[in-house]
């Protein structure tokens, strides 16, 4: 499945004008803060309406300005791990994970929640509330919550930014393993090149609201490192 993103949006003085196509797998939107990576995720999820463009998952069109297609966020089947996770503070970890399973029977819901808690290694923390969990645990609950309704795509906004550096590597491996197991395509936003190296199959290089380059991670990084060596800042 190819993920097509082509969006334009003006927000005050900032112009976002990006287009890229990414294969299934893990795609990193990589670039400095303020280059429009999070805005892109918001457009893909339907939380921000582009002025024009097109967003499609394979043949499924989520947004097309010219055709007047604009699916509501709730109908897009896209999981979203927010930068500060946005876990519901009044609900337990298991209730957070089960929140998107409102159409399932209670038995199916609790089975799915249990499966996800085990997948992210938090089976013993089901009844904890978010404020009783560490940053890394909160991040994993947020990932499990996003995965619960079996979305077609998961978006992750700086998933490791708020994580202590000594557990970051472990969480990257876990994310990689979860991706291998679920096979759900992921787009993650990061400004840390280590996230790109460890996780991304495809990298989309961002700068000033535009895409500078798209390609397989190894190729793009190799080219960029040559450039950086040739033109030291």
């Amino acid at each position: 499945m190819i993920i097509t993103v082509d969006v334009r949006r003006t927000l005050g003085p900032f112009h976002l004008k990006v287009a890229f196509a990414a294969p299934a797998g893990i795609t990193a939107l990589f670039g400095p803060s303020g280059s429009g990576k999070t805005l892109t995720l918001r457009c893909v999820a339907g939380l921000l309406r582009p002025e024009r463009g097109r967003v499609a998952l394979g043949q499924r069109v989520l947004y097309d300005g010219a055709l007047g297609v604009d699916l509501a966020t709730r109908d897009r089947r896209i999981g979203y791990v927010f930068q500060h996770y946005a876990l519901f503070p009044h609900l337990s970890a298991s209730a957070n994970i089960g929140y998107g399973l409102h159409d399932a029977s209670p038995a199916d819901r609790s089975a799915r929640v249990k499966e996800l808690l085990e997948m992210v290694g938090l089976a013993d923390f089901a009844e904890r509330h978010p404020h009783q969990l560490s940053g890394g645990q909160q991040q994993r609950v947020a990932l499990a919550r996003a995965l619960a309704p079996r979305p077609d795509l998961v978006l992750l906004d700086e998933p490791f930014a708020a994580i202590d550096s000594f557990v970051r590597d472990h969480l990257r491996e876990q994310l990689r393993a979860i991706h291998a197991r679920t096979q759900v395509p992921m787009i993650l936003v990061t400004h840390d090149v280590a996230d790109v190296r460890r996780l991304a199959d495809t990298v989309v290089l961002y700068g000033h609201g535009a895409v500078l380059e798209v390609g397989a991670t190894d190729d793009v990084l190799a080219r960029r490192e040559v450039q950086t060596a040739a033109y030291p800042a």
Partner: protein
Amino acid sequence: MDLAPLALSLRVAAVATAFGIAVGVPLAWVLARKSFPGRDVISVLIVLPMVLPPTVLGYGLLVLLGRQGPVDPAIQAVFGEGLVFTPAAAVVAAFVAATPFLIRAAQGGFEQLDVAYEEAARTLGRREFAIFLTVTAPLAWRGIAAGIALCFARAIGEFGATLMLAGNIPGRTQTASIAIYDAVQSGRLEQATTMALALGIVAGAVLFLLARVGRGARW
């Protein structure tokens, strides 16, 4: 002691607050979350009853809803009688005077709530009304509860607008605050004192309970 005015005050305040919740909470959410043309005009109209003297409010309602008012034919058609000098008029007066307090407090509660929670709920496939009940309202509950308490307090103490719209008919539209005024005017000070103390105790008890409920929703 004649308990009828006190009972009427409680009933009027309870019904006015119920209507206040039904109208005020959704309106507060819309004002906190949406921008649309005419938003500022609506905000001003909401604050106006808080700053105007209750007599102006009562007079305005009388002009609008009274015998010669533009709304009177509709009221007659639906209820078979005019609104003025009925217990329902006391509810209308209390509702208009008190609901702005609820809207302001609830709006503050909604504005303080990070929109990311509602956005997260949307990405999880939930509908707006379900999100409001399961995420927004529980997380903004303190602002809403404070608004309900303020609304009830303002409603139970309503005097000026009620007197103008509902009058002072003992046993029918005479609320506690009007009965106290009436008793003082005719020199029945003992009666005024008892009624004032009773009103104070009842209102205090209700507010105390509401504060407990508001705190109870803490996570």
